[in-house]
C-alpha cells in the first residue's frame, strides 16, 4: 500500500487543465506564417524544395492538408517561412487549411460550414469510431493519447468506442490504402446517421506523401462531406481535441 501511495504522490496532478491554452515546446510545428512580401522567385524556390507538394509555386501559400511538417521550407528560407507552435489548426473547410502569405491571425473554424444537427446532438457527448486506413500508427497513438491521463478528452464527453454502431462518427487516419477501402466504407455504413467524418493527419486529408501511390484508393472519402480536417504528421492530441470542441461548439 505504501508503494501505491508513493506512486500517486509522485504522479501528482497530470491532467492539462486548460486544453485551449496549453504551452507546448517552442520547436513544435503548428501554424505556419508566411511573410506578406514573398517574391515570385521565393515562392518558386519553396515549392521546388517542398517534398510534399504543399507549397503553391505562384503564391507561396502552404496547404496544411498536404504539409508533412518537416520544416525544411522554414529552415531554408527563415525570413519567408516560419512555424509557430500554435496547435489550433483544424478546419471545417478544406480551403481554410491553405495558409496564405501575410496571414497571421489564428485559424478558427468556419461556423457556417458546421451542420446544424452537429451542434445540437454532439456538443455534450460525442462517441467516435477510429479507422486506420494505411496510417503509420503515429496518428493512431496520438488519438489514443487524447484520451489519456494528460489530455483526458473524456472530460468533455468525447470518447472512442469499440463499435461503429455505438458511434456518432468516424475518425479516419492514413492515406486510405486500397486494401482497407472496403472495410472503411462498411464501417461508415454501420454508423447510425447523422454521423461525422473527421480526417486526422496529413495522410488522411490528402494522401500526404502517399498521394501518388497506386496502392491508395481515396474515392470513398473524396465523395463524402468531411466535417473536420485535423492536420499534422502526426496530428497533436491538442489539435484534435480543440478541433472537435470547436466543431461541436464546446466552449
Amino acid at each position, binding site marked *: 500500500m505504501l508503494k501505491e501511495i508513493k506512486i500517486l504522490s509522485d504522479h501528482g496532478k497530470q491532467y492539462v487543465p486548460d486544453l485551449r491554452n496549453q504551452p*507546448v515546446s517552442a*520547436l513544435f*510545428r503548428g501554424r505556419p506564417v508566411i511573410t506578406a512580401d514573398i517574391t515570385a522567385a521565393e515562392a518558386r524556390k519553396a515549392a521546388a524544395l517542398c517534398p510534399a507538394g504543399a507549397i503553391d509555386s505562384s503564391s507561396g501559400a502552404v496547404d496544411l492538408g498536404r504539409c508533412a*511538417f*518537416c520544416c525544411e521550407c522554414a529552415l531554408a528560407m527563415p525570413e519567408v517561412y516560419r512555424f509557430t507552435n500554435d496547435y489550433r489548426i483544424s478546419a471545417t473547410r478544406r480551403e481554410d487549411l491553405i495558409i496564405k502569405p501575410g496571414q497571421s491571425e489564428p485559424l478558427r473554424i468556419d461556423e457556417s460550414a458546421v451542420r446544424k444537427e452537429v451542434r445540437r446532438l454532439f456538443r455534450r457527448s460525442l462517441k467516435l469510431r477510429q479507422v*486506420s486506413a494505411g496510417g503509420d500508427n503515429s496518428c493512431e497513438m496520438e488519438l489514443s493519447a487524447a484520451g489519456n491521463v494528460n489530455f483526458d478528452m473524456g472530460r468533455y464527453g468525447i470518447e472512442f468506442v469499440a*463499435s461503429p454502431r455505438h458511434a456518432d462518427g468516424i475518425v479516419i487516419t492514413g*492515406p486510405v490504402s486500397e486494401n482497407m477501402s472496403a472495410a472503411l466504407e462498411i464501417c461508415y455504413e454501420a454508423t447510425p446517421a447523422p454521423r461525422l467524418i473527421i480526417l486526422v493527419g496529413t495522410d488522411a486529408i490528402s494522401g500526404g506523401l502517399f498521394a501518388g501511390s497506386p496502392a491508395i484508393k481515396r474515392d470513398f472519402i473524396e465523395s463524402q462531406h468531411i466535417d473536420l480536417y485535423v492536420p499534422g504528421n502526426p496530428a497533436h492530441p491538442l489539435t484534435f481535441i480543440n478541433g472537435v470542441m470547436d466543431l461541436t461548439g464546446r466552449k
Partner: protein
Amino acid sequence: MSSNRYKVVRNGSSPAGFSEIPVLGYELFHEEVTSMLADERYHCLNYSCFRSGEGFRFICVIADDGSGEIRILSHIKKDDGTPLRSLTASCYAMHIFEREIYENHGVLFDDHPWLKPVRYPHDRADRLSVMDNYPFYEMDSEELHEVGVGPIHAGVIEPGHFRFICNGERVLHLEIQLGYQHRGIEKLFVSAGDGLHRALLSENIAGDSAVAHGLAHAQLLESLAGLEPPVSLQIERCIALELERIGVHIGDTAALCGDVAYQLGQVACEALRTMVINTTQFWCGNRFGKGLIRPGGSNFPLTEESAAEILRVLEEVDRRYANVTDCIYSLPSVLGRFEDIGIVTRKQATSIGAVGMAARTCGVPRDIRATHPFQYYRKMEINPVMQETGDVLARGMLRALEVRESVKIIRRLIENWRNCAKETGRPQYDLRFRPDCLAVSVTEGWRGEICHVAVTDNDGKLVMYKIKDPSMHNWMALALAVRNQEISDFPVCNKSFNLSYCGNDL
C-alpha cells in the same frame, strides 16, 4: 573470413559492388544458406529478389551474430516459371521471405508448407489473389468453432484480421492475415524525387519507430555514398533511438496494465510516457522524433539545453518507472494474468527466426546493437537484456529492465557527447551513390532489428529498396503464443508483442 560463395560486409559500412557478389547455382545456394542457418549463430536479415536483365536476381543477407559479419549470397533464376526447392522446408524462419517473393514475383517454391499471401501488394504477381479469398487454414470438426476479429479492432489501433479456431474457450490455432495497411512504400523510395522525400518516407514506414527506420535509411544512404557521419551525429542518433525505446516501452507497460484493469499502473505509465515523448518534442519539435533523423546531418543538432533537459526528465522517469514496475510485477492480480500466459519457447523462437524483444524474452540473445553495432554503439559495450520464460510477464519485465538500461546508455552517450567535437552538419539530400552496388543497413529499434537494403544501377540510381520490420518475423511468434490459451488472453498476448501492421504491410 572471405569466401568464394558469399561477399562479406559489415553493418552500415561500404557497400558491396555487384561484381564482387558471387552468383551461385541454386543447389549450392540452397546448401550454403540452409547449412548456415542450421547454426543458431546465423540468422537471415533479408531475402528477396528483383528483376534484372537475366531474370530474377536473388539476394540473401545473413548475419553472423558471432563475428559481426554480414554475408551476401546470390543466385540468378530465369523467368521460366519453374519452381524452386524451398528453403523453408529446411529452415522455417525463411517462410516469410519466400512467401513475399512468391507474392511479389510469382516465383513458386514447390515444397513450401505455408505459401500464403503476405500483404496483397498493389503490384503483386497475381491480381486474382484478393483479400476476400485468403486461404485460411481450416479444421473440420463439429466440436470446433471459428472466431474472426478485424480488420477493424475495438481499440484505436491499426487494422489486421485474426482468425481463431477454438475448442470452447481454448485457442487451437490463430491465423493472422495482414496487408490492409499496404501503401506501396518500397516502390516510393525508388521513385521519390529527392533525398528529403525519401527521408520523410522512412519516418512514415512505422511512425512508432520513426527514429529506428529513419536511422536505418540514413545509414543506408550514407553507406551508398561512402560517407562516415561525425561522432557527434552518431551519438545524437543513438540518444534518439534510446529515447524512442524508452517512450514506447513505458507506453506499452501502460497498455498492458490497462488490459488487466490495473489502473494505477496504467495512468502512472501514461504520464511517464508523455514526459519522455515531450522531451523528444523539446529537442526536435515532434513527439515521435519525426524530422530528427536525416542523411548526412541533422536539422536539430543536440544542444546543451536539450541534453540537460533529457537528463533531467530521465532522472525522474527512471525513478518513478522503477517504483511503478516494482508495484506492477509484484501484484498477484497482475501476475495471475501475465505469468505462464502466451509462452513462446526458445526452440520456437529460433525456428521462426524471432528477433529483438520477442527473441530476447525467450533466451535468444538477438540485439543488433551488440552483435552488429552501428553508429556510436560501435564504441560502446551493450549487454542485451534477457528473459527466459517467453511469457507475457517476460515481455513486460524485459521492457522494465530495458528502460533502466537505456537510461544508463543515454547518460553515457551524453557524457561522451559533451566531450566530443560538435561536428553535426546540415542534412545532405543530394548524396551521390556508388554505382552498381548493394548496401545493407540494420538498426535495433525497440521491437527489434530493422533492415534496409538498397541496390543501385550503373548510374548510381536506386533500383531496388527493401525494408524489413521485425514484425515480419514476430507476427508468427504471436500466433504460436496464443495456442492452447484462453481466447480471452489474446489481448494481453497481443499487447505484450505490440507488433507493427504498417511495418509488415509497407
